[in-house]
């Protein structure tokens, strides 16, 4: 391959490094009204009275909006397939506020200071209710978080608001109770995962204006411009055809921008005032008033025979969706559907549970999307089972894991809020990933531990993981390729580059198909008026789904060029070839440049434009094996990460350097969740970790060594053999580091993050019991 599987710098990298304007707020109209939101100080309350007269009278205030200004149209802010598998439980503004930071009212003014002053002048009287802050006490609680009659589901997802249940799910294969009863060994244990904040560097940002055609034009820092257009239209009851959503450069998303946040309010201000308006979330708002990762409790049972054959997996999950149910069911399902098929030789599987409402900041999409939670629970439990069996954890996995050519019945049963799609693993290089990962970390020399003799012990741990490549039969990507005079192309795609480099790799795919250098492909993406539809950047879709669309469109364009070239040369199409520069048939030859100029200026004039789209017929999982070496200080419990090795099978890497960046970035977010990050609340439900001083993401000091490699792999169904790679990197660190800490000091962490305090408590408990470390 000439351009695919070759390093490419991002098409926007240099310009952005040099400070070119490109992000949403850089593109706001000068003099835009500043939109500010009054937010609830209470975890759960009803607005008894709200008086905005003083705020409205303040000079410079353009408009103040409350729930009284909006119809009762419940929507979901989740940007995902339509009809959405998330409950419609959110109003633009409501008389109820359901978490600290929930929206009470909106003021738009000529500048920030005036808008902030206006918020202070709004008089609100609340009826404060007892909030539900502990998700393990939410089910059937006497406090009902969503009493509103309008709440509904688009299709059955198990919504039961009277019981605080946003969704529920159950599936089973075989008779799990019987299987477990027949096993030689059954492991039963519980794990808890915490809320994690996305902390993308660019806060949620949106601006709106009414253009010269009277249309509403939004610039939004979003991962899902087309879903955003649909949801804003629905929420504001405004014609979809009169809305244009443009996604400029985006400063990171990680799932946090796979939703609608400020878009509805800023649009409402622009529509009602006719003036441009903008909003940049403060960092506190990003923490308290957008989304974080669903906390989950896993009650898990694994059954195996003495010879190390895994026979059954029984997983009960309770998930906390916070005040609103965005992505509630689908994140929950991924905790099973993109985790449990790793062990496909079992007789029985059961996966059940509820996703409950609480009065906390809502949970939503976040890279890994359930898989990281499920992976932590399953892959830690597997290590515990191995210990019970007296079996090597690597050998156990090699014996029981899914292999190339195999399938799992789970694929057909579990999909995205609905049934799934059966598929066989055309590519699965887990065996290689494990072998190579062992070499990179030095497993044979280091497993399980090495006492350094100074109170510090080093240990190694491992886990395997899988993800997906888009959502089959639901999420679609599409592409247009336009030939221009002088012989260069526009690649026009709905796909959403949020920094992961999709514009770059999609241009590489087009270049490969056309045989032209990527510099001849000018990319324009994510503008709901000008680009074709794409579901957006989520579910590890873009390389596989949008990439296949680009390849199909580019192949079509190549055929068009050959046909027009043959026509110009007066030769038959058969035997005519295009090599990226010239169209030839025997001795006859015309350059693409000459053909283009002929087509647009001279003869047989016509525009060549190729369009195609793609929806997956399956979702081939990328796989990886993760290995870590940690050092534990037995006097303080402090855990330091010494080394992390990740070997990934994502099929062909379209751009090896960008794919590596995806895995490295994912790993460090996973390491953050494993070791440092924890969204914490006060007893009254106020978020304590609402800034970047108290919410700690990894700095470059903690990350000393990441060894990332890719397995040789070619997925026939993917564009030039590619699967997706956006999420797989994040999944393993919680289990891997938990297992490494256990191997070092014999302390098993059952709730994330793995803090020094928890490890030290474990060490002290062991000492008290007189156990040897």
């Amino acid at each position: 391959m000439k351009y695919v599987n070759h390093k490419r710098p991002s098409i926007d990298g240099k310009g952005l490094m040099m400070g070119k304007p490109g992000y949403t707020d850089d593109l706001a109209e000068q003099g835009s009204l500043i939109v500010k939101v009054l937010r609830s100080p209470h975890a759960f309350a009803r607005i008894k009275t709200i008086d905005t007269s003083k705020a409205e009278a303040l000079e410079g205030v353009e408009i103040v909006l409350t729930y009284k200004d909006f119809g009762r149209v419940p929507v979901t802010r989740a940007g995902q397939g339509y009809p959405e598998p998330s409950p419609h439980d959110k109003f633009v503004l409501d008389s109820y506020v359901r978490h600290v930071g929930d929206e009470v009212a909106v003021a738009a003014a000529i500048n920030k200071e005036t808008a902030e002053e206006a918020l202070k002048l709004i008089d609100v009287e609340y009826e404060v209710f007892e909030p539900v802050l502990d998700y393990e006490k939410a089910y059937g609680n006497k406090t009902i978080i969503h009493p509103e009659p309008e709440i509904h589901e688009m299709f059955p997802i198990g919504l039961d608001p009277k019981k605080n249940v946003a969704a529920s799910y159950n599936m089973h294969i075989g008779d799990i109770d019987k299987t477990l009863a027949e096993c030689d060994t059954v492991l039963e244990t519980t794990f808890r995962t915490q809320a994690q904040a996305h902390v993308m560097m660019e806060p949620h940002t949106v601006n709106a204006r009414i253009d010269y055609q009277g249309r509403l034009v939004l610039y939004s820092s979003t991962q899902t411009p087309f879903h955003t257009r649909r949801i804003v239209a629905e929420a504001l009851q405004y014609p979809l055809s009169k809305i244009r959503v443009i996604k400029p450069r985006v400063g990171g998303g990680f799932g946090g921008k796979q939703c609608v946040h400020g878009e509805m309010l800023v649009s409402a201000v622009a529509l009602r005032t006719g003036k441009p308006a903008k909003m940049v979330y403060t960092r506190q708002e990003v923490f308290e008033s957008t989304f974080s990762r669903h906390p989950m409790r896993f009650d898990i049972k694994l059954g195996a025979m003495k010879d190390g054959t895994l026979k059954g997996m029984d997983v009960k999950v309770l998930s906390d969706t916070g005040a609103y149910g965005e992505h509630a069911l689908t994140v929950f399902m991924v905790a099973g559907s993109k985790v449990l098929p790793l062990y496909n030789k079992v007789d029985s599987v059961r996966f059940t549970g509820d996703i409950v409402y609480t009065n906390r900041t809502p949970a939503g999409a976040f890279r890994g999307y359930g898989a990281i939670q499920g992976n932590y629970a399953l892959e830690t439990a597997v290590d515990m089972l191995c210990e019970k069996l007296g079996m090597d954890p690597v050998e156990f996995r090699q014996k029981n894991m899914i292999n190339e050519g195999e399938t799992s019945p789970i694929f057909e049963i579990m999909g995205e809020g609905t049934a799934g799609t059966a598929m066989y693993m055309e590519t699965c290089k887990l065996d290689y990933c494990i072998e190579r990962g062992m070499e990179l970390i030095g497993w044979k020399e280091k497993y399980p531990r090495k006492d350094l003799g100074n109170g510090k012990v080093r240990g190694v741990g491992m886990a395997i993981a899988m993800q997906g490549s888009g959502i089959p039969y639901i999420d679609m990507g599409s592409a247009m390729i336009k030939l221009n005079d002088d012989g260069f192309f526009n690649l026009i795609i709905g796909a959403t580059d949020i920094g992961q480099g999709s514009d770059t790799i999609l241009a590489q795919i087009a270049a490969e198909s056309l045989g032209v250098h990527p510099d001849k492909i000018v990319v324009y993406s994510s503008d709901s008026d000008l680009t074709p539809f794409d579901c957006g950047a989520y579910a590890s879709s873009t390389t596989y789904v949008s990439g296949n669309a680009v390849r199909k469109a580019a192949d079509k364009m190549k055929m068009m060029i050959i046909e027009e070239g043959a026509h110009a040369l007066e030769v038959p199409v058969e035997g005519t070839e295009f090599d990226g520069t010239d169209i030839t048939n025997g001795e006859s030859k015309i350059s693409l440049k000459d053909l283009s100029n002929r087509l647009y200026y001279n003869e047989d004039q016509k525009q060549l434009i190729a369009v195609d789209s793609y929806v997956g017929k399956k979702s081939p999982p990328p796989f990886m094996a993760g290995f870590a070496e940690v050092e534990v200080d037995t006097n303080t419990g402090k855990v330091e990460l010494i080394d992390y090795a990740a070997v990934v099978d994502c099929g062909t890497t379209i751009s090896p350097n960008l794919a590596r960046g995806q895995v490295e970035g994912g790993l460090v977010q996973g390491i953050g969740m494993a070791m440092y990050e924890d969204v914490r609340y006060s007893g009254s439900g106020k978020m304590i970790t609402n800034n970047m001083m108290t919410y700690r993401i990894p700095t470059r000091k903690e990350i000393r060594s990441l060894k990332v490699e890719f397995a040789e792999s070619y997925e026939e169904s993917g564009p030039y053999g590619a699967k997706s790679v956006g999420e797989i990197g994040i999944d393993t660190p919680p289990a891997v580091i938990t297992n490494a800490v256990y191997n070092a000091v014999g302390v098993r962490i059952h709730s994330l993050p793995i803090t020094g305090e928890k490890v030290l408590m474990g060490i002290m408990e062991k000492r008290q019991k007189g156990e040897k470390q």
Partner: protein
Amino acid sequence: MKLKLIVNGENKTFDVKPDEYLLDTLRNNNYVSVRRGCDNTSCGVCTVLVDGKPVASCSYLSLKAEGRNVTTVEGIAEEAAKLAGFFGEEGADQCGFCNPSVALTVYAMKKELKNPTDDEIRSYLVGNLCRCSGYMGQHRAIKAYLEVD
């Protein structure tokens, strides 16, 4: 109030409020390469150089910069372009939101430290958070740019 600054070598006069921060002054005057990531000196995205030293402009009162040299990434365009080449090579570009601030900090480090070690580089840049790259790609790129092993 009137504030006189030298921005990227040019004499400028801005109207500012007494409690205004340099980040707002610069962004209000179209230096949009200076960006807001947090509001309390935690993320480094708003970094500019004042008399050659990196500062968090989100918490640096504009009036404190009276008469000083303020450098945004546009003021070190040639070096930023060079560093961008290495970032591209290592897959470290990612979302790019923090990259101007990283370029400015690396530029200041290059002036300050001769042949910095891995640990010195990490310490110097510790206030520049990045959520995309996992830091390793940036680290490789910065070392290649500095021509250190």
